């Protein structure tokens, strides 16, 4: 509470850029900032700079729909995201910043037998991994989301749902700013409005980066944490990633009095719905099928997402849409992330986040920091190495990934 009365700077004014850092992190989104934060916290590595081409959180970190959950389909994924959600649970207190983490539960609806089947499968894998996740029927769903229309005679009847009580939503900007403050206090530097245009190499190792204004920054280690843009940065280092970049869109309504506490996801209707603490309904869909770096939304998305939302919440027909936007998603072939080393030494990557990387920020930061600090790859991210694509060792979230955030 005391903090409220003291007007304190969140972070120091941007410093002069030095010639060289132990670690240069490209991308001031949630992953880049988390990596810098854990480097200092866990390994005392503070000669670190985060280079961001616009303002912090200008990428997907500031555009996502903030769903946190760990009920993934593969056991590798479930274990990894579970570790991340656990870190998030303690992160607000650790950063002394309220991240508005609303753990009110997450429901993935099933509208067909086939979908029920996938839910059962996921619940079982999750249960065996110690994750709170189970299949529930219409009555229980009604109790959790009383505002939802559950009429059975519809193209998409609500037959059941995968219920994940620890899932929920968080405030994305708070995560970005809380982490940025943590990074700043830990001693590392954040440089907004600095665009990387080249990665320098010598003898198969990354040695630094060049910026759009020609500045050169030397680095002992370069981390590519640019999510939607990661394949462009990787190719600067001569690393080809099996990543395609697509847009994902979302919109919010004008603030309304509380109607919905839980997060509702319907893969078949390609829509997911939550209500923020401000009262806005936050609605998203699946990625657009074409690849692009142009963050421009479509009318079709707003129309389709509205139509499907109204199948579940007809009373929202009078709710007004306030703002819509698009962000980039880096999609990998198996819908699982790619993390850690590449064939270029000292050039690490965090990519392949698809539509669900925000929830991974703390664990990415912690494990990449551990990789840098100790020189060894943590077990948790072993399965997600880039190498898996050369060895056909995929970690497939495909079956469950149509709309997953």
């Amino acid at each position, binding site marked *: 509470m005391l903090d409220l009365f003291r007007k*304190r*700077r969140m972070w120091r004014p941007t410093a002069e850029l030095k010639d060289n850092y132990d670690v240069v992190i490209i991308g001031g989104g949630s992953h880049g900032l988390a990596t810098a934060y854990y480097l200092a916290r866990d390994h005392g590595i503070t000669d670190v700079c985060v280079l961001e081409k616009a303002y912090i959180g200008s990428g997907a970190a500031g555009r996502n729909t903030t769903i946190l959950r760990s009920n993934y389909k593969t056991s590798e994924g479930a274990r990894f995201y579970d570790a991340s959600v656990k870190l998030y649970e303690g992160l607000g207190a650790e950063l002394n910043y309220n991240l508005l983490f609303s753990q009110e539960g997450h429901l993935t609806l099933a509208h067909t037998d086939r979908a029920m089947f996938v839910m059962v499968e996921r619940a079982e894998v999750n249960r065996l991994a110690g994750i709170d996740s189970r299949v529930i029927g219409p009555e229980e769903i009604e109790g959790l989301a009383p505002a939802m229309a559950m009429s059975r005679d519809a193209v998409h*009847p609500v037959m059941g749902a995968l219920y994940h009580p620890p899932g929920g939503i968080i405030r994305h*900007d708070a995560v970005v700013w809380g982490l940025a403050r943590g990074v700043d206090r830990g001693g590392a530097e954040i440089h907004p409005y600095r665009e990387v245009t080249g990665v320098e190499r010598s003898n198969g190792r990354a040695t630094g980066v060049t910026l759009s204004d020609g500045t050169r920054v030397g680095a002992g280690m370069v981390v590519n944490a640019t999510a939607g843009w990661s394949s462009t940065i990787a190719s600067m280092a001569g690393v080809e990633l099996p990543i395609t970049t697509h847009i994902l869109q979302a919109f919010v309504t004008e603030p309304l*009095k*509380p109607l919905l506490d839980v997060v509702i996801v319907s893969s078949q209707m390609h829509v997911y719905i939550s209500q923020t603490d401000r009262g806005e309904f936050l609605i998203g869909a699946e990625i657009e099928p074409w690849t692009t770096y142009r963050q421009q939304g479509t009318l079709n998305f707003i129309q389709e997402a509205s139509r499907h939302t109204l199948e579940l919440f007809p009373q929202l*027909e*009078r709710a*007004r*849409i306030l703002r819509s936007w698009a962000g980039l998603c880096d999609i990998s072939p198996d819908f699982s992330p790619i993390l850690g080393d590449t064939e270029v030494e000292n050039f690490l990557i965090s990519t392949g986040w698809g539509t669900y990387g925000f929830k991974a920020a703390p664990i990415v930061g912690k494990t990449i920091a551990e990789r840098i600090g100790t020189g060894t790859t943590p077990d948790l991210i072993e399965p997600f190495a880039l190498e898996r694509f050369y060895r056909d060792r995929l970690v497939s979230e495909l079956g469950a990934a149509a709309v997953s955030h």
Partner: protein
Amino acid sequence: MSERLPPNPRERINRARTINFSFDGKDVEAYDGDTIGSALHASGQKVLSRSFKYHRPRGLLCCAGQCPNCLVDVDGSPGVRACTEPVRAGIKVTHMNAKPSLDFDVMRATDLFGKPFTPPGFYYKTFIRPRRLWPLYEKVLRNAAGLGRLAKRQADREWRTEYRRRRADVLVVGGGVAGMAAALRAAELGADVVLMDDGPELGGAMLAGQDADSAKELAESIRAAGVEVLAPAAALGFFDGLVPAWQGNTLHQVRADRHIAATGSIEQPLIFDGNDLPGVMLCSGAERLASLYGVRPGETAVVATTTDRGLESALALQEAGIEVAGVVDARAGDGSEELLGALAAAGISVHRGTGVVKAFGRKHVRGVVVADLDDEGRPDPASKRGIDCDLVAVSGGTMPATSLLLQAGAKARWDEASGSYLPDGVPSDIRVAGAVAGHEPRNCAAKSGAVAGAEAALSLGLGSEEDRARLQADRASLLRETEGPAPAGQARTQDAGSRNGKCFACLCEDVTTKDIDYAIEEGFDSLELLKRYTTVTMGPCQGRMCQLASIRQMSEDTGASIEEVGLTTARPPWSTVPMGVLAGRPFEPAKRSAVHGRHRELGGNVMWAGDWRRAYDYGDVRAETMAVHEGAGLIDVSTLGKLVVSGPEAGAFLNLLYPNRFDNLKPGRIRYGVLGDDAGRITDDGTICRLDENSFYVTTTSSGADAVESWFSWWLAEWKLDVQLTDVSQGLSAFNLAGPRSREILSGLTELDCSNDSFAYLDGKRANVVGVPCLMLRIGFVGELGYELHCPGPLAEHLWDSLLEAGAAHEIRPFGLEPQRILRLQKMHILVGQDTDAESNPLEAAMPWIVKFEKEEDFIGRWALEAVAERGAENKLIGFTIENGTVPTEGAAVVVDGQPVGLVTSSRFSPKLERSIGMAWVPAALAEDGTTITVSDEGRQISAAVQTAPFYDPDQELLRG
């Protein structure tokens, strides 16, 4: 209706007709033509809403639907702008964000006492510990937030809305003088023109002024010229050339070859302590109220301005019958001599070089404190003096309405001379006209519109040489006449001495200038960060009232130039719009088979299956299953996708698509096929019958019909083969007649020799059955002797009836999806999407025999399947049985040492075999007959025995017999 002014010729109301509606339960009388806002104001209800955070009373500000101040709920629709919504008899209007009432709101406490606790982003800094109490705090926060209230529950959509699509040569957005002139000129040159405007009447800024009559004339002439006018229709955004607009129950979607943005400009408020009190209105708002609705905005006005607009406004208000107690002009020297002279003549005193530092009053303005401003625009405390008034008409200059242009890819350039952001780098298919282009005065705007209209039409190849010449001349004279808006004075006249002032930069979100200072000092020193942290510009006004103010302040605070501070991204929709409008007409695409009515008559439990409605069963799953085994059964499989692939290269085409061969299939014979993608993953399956040398009849799964059709078309286009593809899915019906007695039944209905010798397993024959031309496929998805009869949809009912009638003697039963699932499971016939997922390939899905690596040509997925063959199967799809009758849930895990290693994909109790059977994915090592696997089903551990051959008739004797 005491607050009405004497009638004036411009007013929109009909004083002869009154209409009644209710506000918060009280009866309100209005005139026909009133808006809810004008009627309420006239009735003395000056407070229309409570603000978002501090619950401060708010009243009419812009009277043009551009601010958050008049949001009300109308018959259950929240967020309606009272000032633009026409009154209708009997509507129930209620306020939104106040408890217990608009006049007495307990939450106002946050304003009076809580202010130090609620700086921007206060919620990020509080309630952090202890974590377990956060859900409680959160509830409180959530309940305090939000404005509108919707039904807790609603069974269905109630509002019928429509889409309307329109193509046009030229779309003009904005129906002010510039937009109308543009539309007129383009239409005169022969263009098909659509014009949209968010007001009910064309004329824009002219309507409330002296030129109202000429606006009406112009509006008539554009209609006469054939322009389609959409009004009131708010343009919502620019989506790569597609412009949606909301009008009543309709969402127009207009696609035009040329666009003209004539969106005008938005008058900006001023910033001083108490600038949000009811009674503080934009000059244009006060004028609109007076002239369009004959409502007295106040008794005594003080006009505060930074430009000549205020001077004009003071004259207009006085003429309308409002006493003007003085004009407070922030500019010391500038100002039109002509206007100043007119003001002097009218006896209105002008305080030059002064600003309002405070508006006072509790729920309404009672007066203002003004002070002299120094060179920097700071008020001099010693010069403070009060003026009594109940209306403060403010004008802080204008902001061109560039949002649509920015969405279309234009940039905004800061124009120091006029003190506004003007559009720049506008895409070539868009023209800009009128105030949004900085072409302000009326004549200039009209010319600017005519030029834009001519340019648009001429660029489409319309018009003559003469028209071109005229355009040149108009352009030249426009250049001469163009005068940008005159430079504006200081818009923020905050009393530097007082720290307690409530100067609102953003009304929607209750953000004060102090909040902005605070946030910038904290380090949120770029506009995008400031916006996200304080939420300034993120409310319902979409930045119309607050963007410029926050940019100016950021520039002052950080020392960055206004140009450097820049604008925030313009995001659609430009005006808020209900989801029901965007969703269009509610529809549930449902496909029904040609004999759908029969299923209902027969007592079928009809359920959704994808887009289809299908009979799940006819009441007795067990009896239906046994009928197929013992007598005969009939199932409607019209949902199957059906394609005819024909042409000299049809066989080669299928060879490339499928992993097995089709070129060597004999005419009249059938082969099973599995489709895969480039990664070798199974995407669909079905049977393929060669009809003759050049044509094949391909069936697909029900749910995959559309996808297979596109997949085939896509590859056909890629490979450019001599093949025609005809999708006959919708035209043909199909029934599967199955069971030991099906041959007898069929024989009685057709001349065709149905004996096993002449119509063998996997034969496909064409013949008439009860006079209905059929393609008959002898296949056995359900595992008994059977015939799939495909026939034209219109004749299907006759065939269905005849089969049941003839089958009656053989104890035939119609059977539904569920019995079919049991029957096919007994045969281990996979269901794509059930037993396979996006990861399954045929080699591992128990169908290695179907992949013909020895085929010389490439086929889709070959490379990937070869890789799988090389590494060997890791997982396999197998069958299993459970003796004790337990049926594990489909989706349950197969575990080894408590870890999931596979899953159950299908499971049923088989009444015929009297045990539980199922299929599961297991690691290859466990895929041996007789191996015991463990299934974990919601914690229960179940043992099952692996079986790799079909559970029923493994040697196909029944099928072949």
